[in-house]
């Protein structure tokens, strides 16, 4: 078009014959020069304009041809698997549904993302979700919970048993830059038709008819604005709005408007309407969440209403569509009144265009605007911190912020919730006696090493110093089971009945300093058997034993337990004068809990790209290097500790068998407890950041948190059966000699075959006689 006009002008100006005679030669020259200048100027202008258009075209195509947006990684919790026989409380299931923003309805659910609950029956219509191992389709299911266990699981309509249902995973967080945009990409076919209709009705009715710029609409807006004496209507098409959002500054001036129009035309030239609409739906700005900008209807739907766009009611859709006009001004959280009015305007437009009936419009307008309670959204800074550390081994930090990766983690939101609650409530009780007390906790699955929960601060949602991973403190008596394991590995030399001396011990260290350990009760107990020394957590016997075994034997045992700490060459190492984090301790005790099968603690199961294609699966890893029989001996005592040892306060508090060890560092600086059921292992630490005495032992501090966690989550009893090469034998608890059931101080202990005591106690020696006497009574 432009080129054609220029040609005409040029040809016309080349033949102005009529004026020729009137001009003097000088004037003629002037006139010709002027003409040439005009031609030249016009030519240059055309070229510049053309180049400018080419440049705009390059910008448009360049932006649209590759990755349009930097998409933060999305991090999900583990999906909850539902099956008959699963230990699960009603509270835990309702908690999960609430975290997933499932809507409670008062009859059987008929749409995904809804549930019905009455008594011990919960009916759910699950959401479809694409996992790393395939698509999980939406299912309707009726679940009965009895005795904290799923007792039956049937299809709601089919009435047939459903072996396994997997809920969609709880979204935890995104990994975005400090000041970044966040969005959940939607494909156009994932957007409900009604939503698209209302959106176009409100923003651009002739979207499918214009070529990027709608002159009719501009004229109508102009008239309306003149009439009103101010700007009341915009004439921008959706294409123009998209161009403005993606390429231009928010100022309003003619130059920007011109650019917008040209780029809109160019955009329509290269891309079809469907692509443009899809991009618009994902691009539009819809509010702010502190540093994070909410873009696109996919994220906005989740952010404001806690569910996917496909599950929104029309009134909720209308709120979001209404926000396009002013995301801040019509924000439903900050300005609910304005947002409601704007919603109603959108609904009126829908009514006027025949999309809804008058009755529907009236009903929808009467509805109260309810947005998701943002306060209930939990943040798990300590866990996410672990995820990021584990991911950065395999992924570039920049890719995590921009490639739209989907990260499936091991977090169990309910276990996390219970652990946080236990930390908060226990610290609140203990703080009067130990001000500024800090806390950390790690809960993991025994068999897979999956981290279920992490707390890194007494205020678990505070994203500061992550004590669970980074607070490395003296581990105190938590070291003792390691030392004893190192001993019973040499079962030709040591057994649980080996006598250890609990008498004064003075050792000169390499630095010439004298080390003289004391028991917690400040007394000596003479000779004690290994079983009792561990049960009562005596210091001197284990210190003596550790010196006998040597540092390398302890280091080697630690390595078999999955810990590669280089122990300092001090004799006090045997009493736990070595710094470790709660996470490292959890890893060691996971190996105890799994009877010697070590699984490295992990927080990520799989990573998918933004199209849902699996990139990496972090597979289950197990390794057993320790002798299972030796491990069984120590676990036997760890169980007894929770019944009659230093953790006897647990007995009667839990209705299952557990095992564990208290830990108290010198001068009560650190209060530890590490313990496990058959399926879960947890470590809790309480202490001060500045290493002051807390006044708490392992039992009076950390164990209370641990107990609350294990009281509130579904756990199963440890198995007490022994491996084949173990024999249970009655021994005298004072002398370690063979004894009998009826004898005083007799205790039945496990022995690796061949390591049983051979000499008998007096009672045992007299046993046949006693039996003979009884016979004649």
């Amino acid at each position: 078009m432009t080129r054609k006009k220029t040609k005409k002008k040029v040809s016309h100006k080349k033949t102005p014959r009529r004026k020729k005679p009137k001009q003097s030669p000088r004037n003629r020259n002037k006139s010709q020069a002027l003409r040439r200048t005009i031609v030249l100027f016009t030519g240059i202008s055309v070229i510049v304009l053309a180049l400018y258009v080419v440049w705009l075209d390059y910008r448009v195509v360049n932006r649209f041809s590759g990755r349009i947006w930097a998409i933060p990684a999305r991090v999900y919790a583990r999906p909850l698997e539902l099956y008959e026989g699963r230990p699960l409380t009603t509270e835990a299931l309702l908690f999960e549904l609430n975290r997933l923003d499932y809507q409670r309805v008062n009859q059987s659910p008929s749409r995904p993302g809804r549930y019905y609950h009455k008594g011990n029956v919960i009916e759910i219509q699950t959401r479809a979700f694409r996992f790393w191992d395939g698509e999980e389709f939406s299912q309707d299911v009726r679940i009965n919970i009895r005795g904290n266990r799923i007792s039956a699981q049937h299809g709601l309509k089919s009435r047939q048993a459903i072996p396994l249902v997997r809920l969609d995973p709880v979204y935890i967080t995104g990994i975005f830059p400090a000041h970044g945009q966040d969005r959940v990409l939607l494909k156009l076919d994932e957007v409900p038709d009604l939503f698209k209709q209302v959106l176009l009705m409100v923003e651009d009715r002739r979207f499918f008819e214009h070529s990027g710029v709608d002159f009719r609409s501009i004229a109508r807006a102009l008239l309306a604005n003149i009439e009103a004496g101010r700007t009341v209507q915009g004439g921008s098409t959706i294409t123009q709005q998209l161009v403005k959002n993606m390429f231009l500054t928010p100022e309003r001036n003619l130059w920007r408007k011109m650019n917008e129009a040209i780029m809109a035309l160019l955009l329509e030239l290269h891309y079809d309407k469907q692509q443009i609409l899809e991009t618009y739906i994902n691009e539009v700005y819809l509010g702010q969440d502190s540093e994070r900008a909410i873009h696109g209807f996919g994220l906005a739907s989740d952010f404001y209403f806690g569910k996917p766009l496909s599950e929104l009611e029309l009134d909720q859709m209308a709120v979001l569509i209404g926000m396009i006009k002013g995301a801040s001004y019509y924000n439903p959280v900050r300005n609910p009144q304005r947002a409601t009015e704007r919603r109603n305007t959108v609904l009126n437009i829908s009514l006027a265009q025949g999309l809804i009936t008058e009755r529907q419009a009236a009903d929808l307008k009467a509805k109260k605007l309810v947005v998701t309670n943002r306060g209930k959204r939990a943040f798990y800074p300590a866990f996410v911190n672990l995820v990021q550390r584990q991911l950065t081994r395999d992924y570039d930090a920049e890719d995590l912020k921009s490639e739209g990766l989907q990260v499936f983690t091991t977090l169990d939101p309910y276990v996390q919730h219970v652990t946080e609650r236990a930390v908060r409530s226990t610290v609140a009780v203990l703080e009067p006696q130990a001000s500024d007390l800090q806390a950390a906790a790690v809960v993991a699955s025994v068999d897979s090493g999956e981290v279920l929960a992490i707390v890194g601060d007494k205020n678990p949602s505070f994203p500061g110093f992550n004590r669970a991973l980074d607070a490395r403190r003296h581990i105190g008596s938590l070291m003792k089971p390691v030392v004893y394991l190192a001993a019973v590995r040499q079962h030709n030399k040591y057994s649980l009945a080996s006598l250890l001396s609990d008498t004064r011990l003075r050792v000169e260290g390499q630095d010439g300093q004298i080390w003289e350990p004391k028991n917690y009760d400040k007394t000596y107990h003479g000779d004690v058997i290994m079983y009792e020394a561990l049960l009562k957590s005596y210091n001197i016997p284990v210190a003596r034993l550790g010196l006998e075994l040597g540092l390398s034997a302890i280091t080697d045992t630690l390595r078999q337990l999955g810990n590669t700490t280089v122990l300092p060459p001090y004799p006090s190492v045997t009493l736990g004068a070595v710094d470790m984090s709660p996470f490292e301790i959890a890893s060691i005790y996971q190996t105890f809990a799994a009877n010697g099968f070590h699984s490295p603690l992990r927080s990520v199961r799989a990573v998918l790209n933004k199209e849902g294609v699996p990139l990496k699966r972090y597979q289950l890893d197990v390794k057993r290097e320790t002798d299972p029989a030796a491990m069984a001996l120590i676990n036997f005592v760890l169980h007894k500790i929770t019944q009659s040892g230093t953790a006897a306060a647990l007995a009667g508090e839990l209705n299952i068998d557990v095992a564990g060890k208290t830990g108290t560092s010198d001068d009560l600086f650190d209060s530890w407890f590490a313990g496990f059921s058959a399926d879960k292992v947890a470590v809790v630490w309480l202490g001060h950041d500045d290493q002051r005495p807390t006044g708490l032992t392992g039992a009076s501090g950390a164990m209370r948190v641990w107990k609350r966690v294990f009281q509130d989550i579904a756990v199963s009893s440890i198995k007490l059966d022994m491996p084949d090469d173990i024999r249970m034998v009655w021994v005298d608890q004072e002398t370690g000699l063979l004894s009998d059931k009826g004898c005083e101080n007799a205790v039945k202990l496990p022995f690796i075959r061949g390591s049983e005591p051979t000499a008998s106690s007096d009672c045992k020696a007299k046993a046949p006689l006693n039996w003979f006497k009884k016979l004649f009574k």
Partner: protein
Amino acid sequence: MTLRRFLSAAGTASLLAQLACAPAGYQKSEVVSEQATTLAMASEIWQQSDIESLPAVDDLVRQADAQIASRKLDMAAEKLERALRISPDYAPAWSRLAHIALAEADPGRAIQMARRSNSHAGDSVELKLLNWQYIRKASQMLGDVEGARNASETINTLRSL
């Protein structure tokens, strides 16, 4: 399926004998047929194991078996791990993971998975035998002569039971 039915008729004991006698060194051309035979034999043992399981576990393991058969090993491993999250003591699932590890030429992992399976196998001698055969094969792949010999001895002891 035909092979499986045939093998089923032959009886598990003879299957185990065949598996145990499978030569350590073999021609490349034999690899595919040997793998198919080994899988068929192993499937028999896994499926005949009388270790109790939940319907959810059966469901996942069934899917895993189909994926093992069609060489979608990573997917199968994922299904088995899901099953083990539900029932960590389900020895046949650990045994399948050992099979997958061997098929993926990861003998170290195969040994660990087979050991784990054995630790939960209880009285299931056939499953233990299968796992020890995995351990022997994996030890051979690792060049661990001692480990392979120990495994052979255990296999002989188990056979004599």
